């Protein structure tokens, strides 16, 4: 706000003088043909309008430097939550190393109480091209770069869903690499963690679907903990049914959408890297039914 105030003041002052000069000194029909007095410069005036901007810059710079250092050197409290973020084309992998959880695209974190801060520290890197993690209502963006680890922290104080998306052009579906951050109360968050820590739901009625999944190329890319599927190229599906969206926030997670997605991802998110699985109708139905049981 301070920066905005200074720049607004400068705009009004300089713009005002400019507007005044333009009106006051415009050529009028009653003017004689004589040229106005030619003034080539003035050392005093020029000195003053050098010194004043320098002072403004000094003030602006010092306040900015303080914010930079406060943000980047903020000390990490012991109650901070650690999340590892890995950017992929075109989805987000979230790993909670100390909790043994792996999930994708929807980040659940506890909200913080100012008296007992519990920020979330994100350690981020990329598996392929440059990305950038940006949830505007929580923090500025930090780039997610291969062969480099960047750290940032977020610290929401009220529960809710915070929307964000990738902010560094990373290829065809950069626009649909969305982020949903679920700020939850401590109780809700702990419940979510407990459920995520379990292996995949084994529902007897959906065994056929599970069998189709495990005997197709799905397992090359996806992990479902508790089964033999351990692929890392695509999102972890262990608790897929608990998510509000699929395709990195691009599509609502309903059985109908899920079926269409598995049938032909490129039609719903053109250019995404999941290939069409070419399953027949029956297989498609049972696999979808199976995946909807993975709470």
């Amino acid at each position, binding site marked *: 706000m301070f*920066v905005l105030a200074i*720049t607004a003041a*400068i*705009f009004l002052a*300089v713009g005002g003088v*400019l507007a005044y*000069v333009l009106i*006051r*000194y*415009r*050529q009028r029909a009653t*003017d004689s043909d004589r*040229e*106005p007095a*030619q*003034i*080539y*410069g*003035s050392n005093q005036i*020029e000195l003053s*309008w*050098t010194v004043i*901007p*320098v002072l403004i*810059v000094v003030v602006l*710079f010092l306040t*900015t*430097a303080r914010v*930079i*250092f406060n*943000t*980047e*050197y903020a000390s990490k409290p012991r109650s901070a939550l650690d999340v590892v973020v890995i950017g992929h*084309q075109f989805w987000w992998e979230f790993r909670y190393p100390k909790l043994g959880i792996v999930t994708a695209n929807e980040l659940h974190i506890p909200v913080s109480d100012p008296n007992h801060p519990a920020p979330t520290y994100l350690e981020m890197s990329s598996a392929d*091209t*440059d990305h*950038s993690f*940006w949830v*505007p209502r929580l*923090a*500025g*963006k*930090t*780039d997610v*770069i*291969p*062969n480099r680890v960047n750290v940032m922290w977020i610290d929401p104080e009220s529960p809710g869903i915070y*929307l*964000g*998306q*990738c*902010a*560094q*052009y*990373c*290829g*065809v579906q*950069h*626009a649909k690499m969305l982020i949903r951050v679920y700020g939850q109360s401590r109780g809700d968050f702990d419940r979510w963690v407990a459920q995520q820590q379990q292996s995949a739901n084994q529902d007897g009625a959906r065994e056929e679907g599970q069998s189709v999944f495990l005997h197709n190329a799905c397992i090359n890319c996806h992990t479902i903990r508790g089964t033999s599927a351990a692929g890392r190229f695509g999102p972890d599906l262990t608790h897929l049914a608990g998510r509000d969206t699929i395709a990195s926030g691009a599509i609502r997670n309903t059985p109908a959408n899920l079926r269409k997605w598995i049938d032909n991802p490129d039609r719903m998110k*053109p250019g995404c890297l999941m290939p069409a699985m070419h399953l027949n109708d029956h297989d498609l139905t049972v696999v979808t039914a199976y995946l909807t049981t993975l709470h």
Partner: protein
Amino acid sequence: MADSLPLTGAIDLTSAPKARPLALEVLHAWVTTVDHKKIGLMYIGYALVFLVIAGLEAVVMRLQLAVPENSLVSPQVFNRMFTMHGTTMVFFVGMPILFGFGNYLIPLMLGARDMAFPRLNAFSFWIAAFGGLLLYFSFLGGDGLYGAGTAPDVGWFAYAPLTAKVFSPGHSTDYWTLGILLSGVGTIGTALNIVTTIIALRCPGMKLSRMPLLVWLYFITCCMVFVAVGPLTAAQIMLSIDRYLGGHFFDTQAGGSAVLWMHFFWIFGHPEVYILVLPAFGFANEIIPVFSRKAIFGYPAMVAATVAIGFISLSVWAHHMFTVGLGPGANTFFTLATMVIAVPTGIKIFNWIATLSGGNIRFTVAMMFCVAFLFQFLVAGLTGIMLSASPFDWQLSGSYFVVAHFHYVLVGAILFTIFAAFYYWFPKMSGRMLDETLGKWHFWLFLIGFHLTFDFMHIPGVLGMPRRIYTYEFDRGWGVWNLIVSCGVIFQVVAIGCFVFNLLRSYSKGRIAGPDPWDAWTLEWSTASPPPVYNFATIPTVQSRRPLWDLKHPEDPDSNYEM
């Protein structure tokens, strides 16, 4: 008084009648010319064609983004549009048009007959032109029109490793690399020519402190070109080595660094935008005094401020990388350097205002564009100051706020002064005046369109909309702002239409201009409009910064006062 020639013997008044030349003769003359005026006009014409093309690319983008979840074009096409729009506007509109004006005006302003190296001049033009054609051939090459086309889609700054062979197969990225590489060769050649001309071909009496400010600004611009274009060329060679010889410069799998590309690109990229803006300041420096009827206020300070801007601009590049995680030390340094550049830039704005103050301001179309430039550049500079504060930038980088900011500079400042330059120097180049009424339509329509589009564009940025996305969701709240932004495009398109119509019609039907229609003061106005191929019958000798002022006001010459 402005119509009669102040210099006797300065031009050859006899003209031998010639038979009408054949079309093929005319074409041959233009293709083989080494005359700086013809080359300048070719640069300008080339740039105008690409301005329209790149403008159409922008129209496609704005139509797609006007409403949420639009499906007018596929993401692949959209990504090609923003890549080609940015690349074309910077390299094949901005650079050629500015070097075109420079080519045309600098020898005339210096009292010289041509550039220092006329053949190099022609070579530089043709290789740069070829670069642009090569880039656009990418739409046809490879898969061509049947498939999705192979125009590059990696963004105009082509961050690694997206540009690696594995993430960008095919040749689209290579068209980007080669097209710009060739244009860079041309740019260095022209810059070399301009610097040599300025140092070695000034007419007698024209000390460096007596050159028109436009020439000073081009001089500094070209010095920056030498330092800034090399890094881009080097980075592109490295990229090509990665893509074709299996190199690992930017191959993160082999330990290479994606951030290194960013450093190299922005070491070029930031000075590049100053290379684009300094000539625009040069135009303002010539036009504002003439239509205020006063000498420029503070000539030495203007030169010193520009030199300062040139130097400082070489040290601010990483303000494009505040979000990369360079660390608080680096972020602080680049914040400081970027804020410091505001001081000399502010000095220039104050000097312009002081020039206007006490003057007798004539609001010709050229002057109107310059006035708009002053307000808009002020705003652009201030949003730049906002962005220079890294914490601000962490939110706004890569968002539509940045897009709005840089379009405010590129369109609001640079394009507006280019329009001013057209209205001011078209009479000299063609011998006829551009129509002032059509010019006013052009100005007001474009002003409305510009502000509709780029004022409101700041808002989606602040609301969290990133750049380079082909669509956005309904629930983000960006729809209404994007719609307003897209509506502004209509006005701009019509305005450009007026402008092109004005150019074409005035070329044959405009009012005859004479050598000095604006009652101006620098040497180009002392010769005929258009100038003969040898520029001046006799090389003039000058004794002050405004030789024609001294001639018109012998009782009060500049040489008595110059600081």
